[in-house]
């Protein structure tokens, strides 16, 4: 008997107890078997394609991780922005609390806290150890009471400062002025830049993957040509190639996931000890979404690449 042809007897779907399931299985099995056969026959080409796709996905994933961390650091920096209002000396404690109430009612304010002059002095002494004995040098505490206001969004800091300045009982307002404005402009640019870089890398990955799959399909144009000439339907021609695309995209996504996960875990651990001031996102916080992105990108592009690659060969 011819060795190339399967002669294994199989149960006739018509006679099966579950004809519908058997029929479906009979339809699915050859498509998957054809896809696996196709991958095996074109081993070198497929290995090259999977490597290329894995690299592209890893780069795109790294872009995503960088962008997420940049946004995280920017958010932390912005969260530290605050407006300080120095209060008039004649303001009593009850008036101060009323003022705090109205400050908290201002739009853009997250929280407000009264800092007494005694507390302010203690902080000053804590910050500058050399001034520990300043009490003894001064006849009285020269610092005023103040109100520290944290804003909901760093971009609103100027507006909050203006509103605070207009409130009765507030003498003077400090918020870092241009420094904060520059910080806001910087973090906004970094955020946009991060998104743009991640987007560009994803687009590049997409192009590379589609092109790679197109090449593997072009290498098999004769097979496709014969298929269409002997009367294979479009669906039949497409099926194994799309499954192949999914298998290629999936394998590459798996490789990229392993590289990204191990790489990020090692990096985060090293950064925690070597650069403690750099607050990176923990792997648990950022890896799940990153891997979802990598898998969605890998599978989608696997299917899209096959469809685009096949289109020109299926025209006649």
């Amino acid at each position, binding site marked *: 008997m011819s*060795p190339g*042809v399967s002669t294994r007897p199989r149960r*006739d779907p018509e006679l099966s107890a579950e004809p519908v399931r058997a029929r479906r299985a009979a339809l699915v099995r050859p498509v998957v078997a054809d896809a696996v056969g196709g991958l095996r026959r074109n081993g070198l080409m497929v290995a090259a394609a999977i490597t290329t796709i894995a690299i592209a996905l890893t780069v795109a994933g790294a872009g995503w991780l960088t962008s997420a961390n940049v946004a995280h650091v920017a958010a932390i920096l912005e969260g530290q922005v605050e407006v300080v209002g120095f209060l008039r000396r004649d303001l009593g404690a009850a008036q101060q609390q009323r003022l705090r109430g109205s400050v908290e009612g201002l739009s853009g304010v997250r929280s407000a806290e009264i800092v007494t002059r005694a507390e302010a002095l203690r902080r000053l002494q804590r910050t500058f150890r050399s001034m520990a004995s300043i009490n003894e040098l001064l006849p009285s505490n020269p610092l005023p009471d103040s109100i520290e206001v944290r804003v909901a969004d760093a971009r609103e800091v100027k507006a909050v400062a203006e509103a605070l300045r207009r409130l009765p009982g507030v003498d003077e307002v400090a918020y870092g002025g241009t420094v904060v404005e520059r910080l806001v402009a910087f973090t906004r640019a970094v955020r946009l830049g991060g998104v743009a870089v991640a987007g560009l890398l994803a687009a590049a990955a997409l192009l590379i993957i589609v092109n790679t799959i197109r090449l593997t399909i072009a290498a098999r144009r004769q097979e496709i*040509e014969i298929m269409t000439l002997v009367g294979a339907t479009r669906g039949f021609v497409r099926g194994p190639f799309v499954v192949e695309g999914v298998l290629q995209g999936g394998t590459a996504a798996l490789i990229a996931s392993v590289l990204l996960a191990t790489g990020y875990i090692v990096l985060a651990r090293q950064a925690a000890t070597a650069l403690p001031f750099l607050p990176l996102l923990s792997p648990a916080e950022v890896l799940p979404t990153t891997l979802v992105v990598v898998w969605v990108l890998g599978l989608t592009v696997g299917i899209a690449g096959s469809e685009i690659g096949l289109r020109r060969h299926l025209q006649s």
Partner: protein
Amino acid sequence: MIHFDSVGKRYATGVEALQGVNVRIEPGEFVFLVGPTGSGKTTFLRLIQRIEQPTTGRVMVDGIDVGALPPAQVPYLRRRLGAVFQDFKLLPDRTVAENVAFALRVTGVDDLEVAPRVAWALDTVGLAGRAGDLPGRLSGGEQQRVGIARAIVTRPRVVLADEPTGNLDPEAAWEIMHLLAKINLRGTTMVVTTHNATLVDVLRRRVVELCAGRVVRDESRGLYQTA
């Protein structure tokens, strides 16, 4: 069976490949399509397979207007037509049996039927003993016989052969033509384009001659050239 009714085909490049062609081929006929290169022979076959569509007129196969067929129906038309090519079009990385089985598998024939039908087709072309070989190990004539086995394994009512002996030495060419004649005797309609005058003259079958896209001769037991 096949009816060309005032068929014209003009390509996008402006080339008039066929003009006013009227040919009727009855079931079971063996027809040689002859004529110089560029006379429209290949276009004639491609119109039957619906690889091309006529610009004017109608091509009917089994009563179906092939040009008007919706694209989704084209595969089912092609399953009724076996095709043999000058360059064999075999898949080099698959065995002889797999190449023949390919035509059945991609048309969704049940696995149970594949092996006996492949065995029958290979037996018909005299290659039962080479089923496990790769095409690269076969001679040109043997490779073309695999191509013919693939064309007949679906049991088509028509076989279209485009220069099937074009790449073969005279002896192999004669074997191939003899094989096509044998298949024709079983009732399969055969349309064969060729430049091989000897074969046409020895077999003495119907000859349709094309020249510059027009039918210039149609003889029932013709020669390659008019005497």
